[in-house]
């Protein structure tokens, strides 16, 4: 039974790979792969490893690299948001970017819960477009705004570059994102409902949250975000180091890392 389910998933994923061009080598570079498969793949060290291959073809096995998705049921939409997050926090010579750090999976889980549903926000009407000093005034939840934003990222990409967002090269993606950031992208709804800069700001903050959160939230994989920043995570105390005149490079620890 479980085996069958797994095969089904593999099949549909292969199908997806074909349509997006990955399987035929249509996309170069590791960032896209990292978006929906185990990030070890583009290190080239899993090609001969069967389990890795399974992962590579998309079986959501609950591993840190591919924990599966709760909110983004649509593969293409997940790919769009993954690429957008990677542009906010790209992989470079300092270390991994948003995708390798698992930030899209962080966002996926957040959108399915209190964050996505605005459970702790005041959501009673009437709704009016406010002044910038009055803050977010839309009736949309974060989950709804992300869904709309992803749709509009692809729409803007198609209008400007005749292709989906995730298939553009980096510079073109940045051009689209900048349009959102400046509030110049068409959200297809009145500004009282959604403004492109609100979507952009949420995308930006969610990316930073996803790269630096405790790894239990599925981002900051392997604490690599913390390592780049030299943040030691959860330490019981610094009382023996607080007056040190040297910079203390401390091995990071996650909140539940030391517990069973």
């Amino acid at each position, binding site marked *: 039974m479980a085996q069958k389910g797994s095969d089904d998933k593999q099949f549909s994923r292969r199908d997806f790979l074909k349509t997006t061009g990955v399987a035929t080598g249509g996309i170069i570079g590791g960032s896209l792969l990292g978006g929906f498969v185990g990030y070890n793949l583009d290190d080239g060290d899993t090609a001969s490893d069967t389990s890795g291959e399974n992962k590579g073809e998309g079986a959501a096995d609950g591993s840190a690299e591919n924990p599966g998705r709760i909110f983004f049921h649509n593969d293409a939409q997940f790919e769009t948001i993954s690429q957008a997050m990677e542009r906010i926090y790209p992989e470079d010579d*300092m270390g991994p970017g948003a995708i390798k750090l698992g930030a899209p999976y962080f966002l996926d889980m957040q959108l399915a819960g209190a964050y996505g549903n605005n459970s702790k926000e*005041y959501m009673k009407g009437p709704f009016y477009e406010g002044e910038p000093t009055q803050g977010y005034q839309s009736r949309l939840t974060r989950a709804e705004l992300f869904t709309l934003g992803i749709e509009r990222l692809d729409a803007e990409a198609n209008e400007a570059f005749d292709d989906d967002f995730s298939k553009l090269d980096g510079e073109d993606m940045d051009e689209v994102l900048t349009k959102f950031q400046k509030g110049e992208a068409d959200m297809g709804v009145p500004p009282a409902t959604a403004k492109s800069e609100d979507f952009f700001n949420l995308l930006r903050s969610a990316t930073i949250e996803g790269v630096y959160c405790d790894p239990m939230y599925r981002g900051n994989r392997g604490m690599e975000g913390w390592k780049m920043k030299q943040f030691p995570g959860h330490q019981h105390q610094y009382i023996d180091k607080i007056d040190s005149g040297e910079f203390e490079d401390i091995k990071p620890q996650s909140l539940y890392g030391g517990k069973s």
Partner: protein
Amino acid sequence: MAKELDKVDVLTVGVGWTGGIIAAEAAKEGLKVVGLERGKERGTEDYQNIHDEYKYAIRYELMQDVSKETLTFRNSPDQRALPMRQLGSFLLGENLGGAGTHWNGQTWRFLPYDFEIRSMTEEKYGEDKLMEDDGYRLQDWGITYDELEPYFDRFEKTCGLSGEENPLGGKRSDAYPTPPMIKTPILKKFEKASSGLGYSPIMMPSANLSEAFENPDGQKIQACQYCAFCERFGCEYGAKSSPEITVIPTARETGNFEVRTHANVVEILTDEDDDSRVTGVKYVDTRTREEFIQPADVVVLNSYVFNNYKLLRVSDIGKQYDPETEEGTLGRSYCYQIFGGATGFFDEQFNTFMGAGALGMAFDDHNGDNFDHSDLDFLHGGNISVTQTGSRPIANNPLRPDTPSWGSEFKKESIENYTRTLSVSGQGATLPHKDNYIDLDETYKDDYGVPLVKLTYNFKNQDRARHQHLAERSAEVLEEMGAKEVSKAAELGDYSIVPYQSTHNTGGTIMGDDPEKSVVNNWLQHWDRDNLFVVGAGNFVHNSGYNPTGTVGALAYRCAEGVIRFAKEGGRLEDK
């Protein structure tokens, strides 16, 4: 139909610092006290897995659930007030301990100048300096620093405060209960630079304790471990003085205090036969939605600034302030704070991720009237400090001006700067202005059908000038500290409810010696209801250049004395 319960001697609405102090003192005197807390029970055992920036600092786990209650905001009356749909500018507390659970512990006394600001300003600079034509409404507090001093001392002993004498502060009757925190290399750098500029830096008075302490009530507070998770977090060690580890257990141990959680007060009930007194309150069980009447001989409002105001207003107690006529006292003199500071970029790396909420050094040379204002177009000033509160990676991504806020350059800069920047900042006072006030909203309601509070607020010219002044002084200190580049705070624009600034909201239920100009007397007894007391930063007649909790705690201890006296003798306390 609300169910009527048995009468108690004293009732506190809210159980944080002020409610806990009133409860502890009254219960020790043998009075039967009930505390109605709309949140849940919590304590140190709930903070054992607290080192989670995302949950606590970013998603505000310990703060008020604004889906149930928030406020509306506008910059001026010509705007439509709209709800603050998510927390931002300030972080309202909720649950047992209130904001006293997730404060940083920076615990100052307001200056002698603060309490007599109008008289002292007029005497020194003349009446024009009050700038009344520009809409400022300075007022003395109806109490002096010297009168309040014993209560400051009492609160500091409850906290076990760690600190050292401030040469520019008010006179102290006793030393701090515990010595200052550890002076770290960052603080030493600030000390050397600010001393070099002629200032008088001191270790910040801290409620994260330098050593274990048993307070006068027998409560034990542990020594701070510098774990760097203080602000927006609860302390897993019981090393940050909070209501849950001090005054609340003190009250409970008497056997005279009951905390009733999930109890949201919606109305204060005035005696139908005698409008000089209240009979109790009506509250809703937030889980069952059952309504209760809790009668009490004395009612004390101990919730936050906004909610204390709101309960008076919806219960029709006192007269609402009208900015056109300037009549009415309820809701006037709302004040906030401004933060004029600067960020310095260094080559060397600092241990910025270590720290404690009140680990810092500060000087008051540009606070209050400690510097000459003759040629300045503003009054007051601010406490200028460096703090090492523990910077965490989601919220701390320091950038030079003009660095992009995303992409490769952002990533590189924010990572490098994370351990290579230090900030020095002035915590600036704000003064009451006739156009800044709180009212009740006509459109939006809370989850219990009660209207939301409506805030009308904007920064004024004095704020902009004071902000600029503090930013310049801060930048000079950073240059002296050897920063290779210093970035000064941009000019102050309109007040925005969006970015976090400070949970130091004040006013709306101000104190004084004149019922025409204040809501409560200097025992915090309501002018129109003898057995009703209103306690908190809402009593502040203006906001000073300090964190408010020290002064709030002092006022609460004074109020507690008033409550006990009233319970025994009754009557108007200002006449005694």
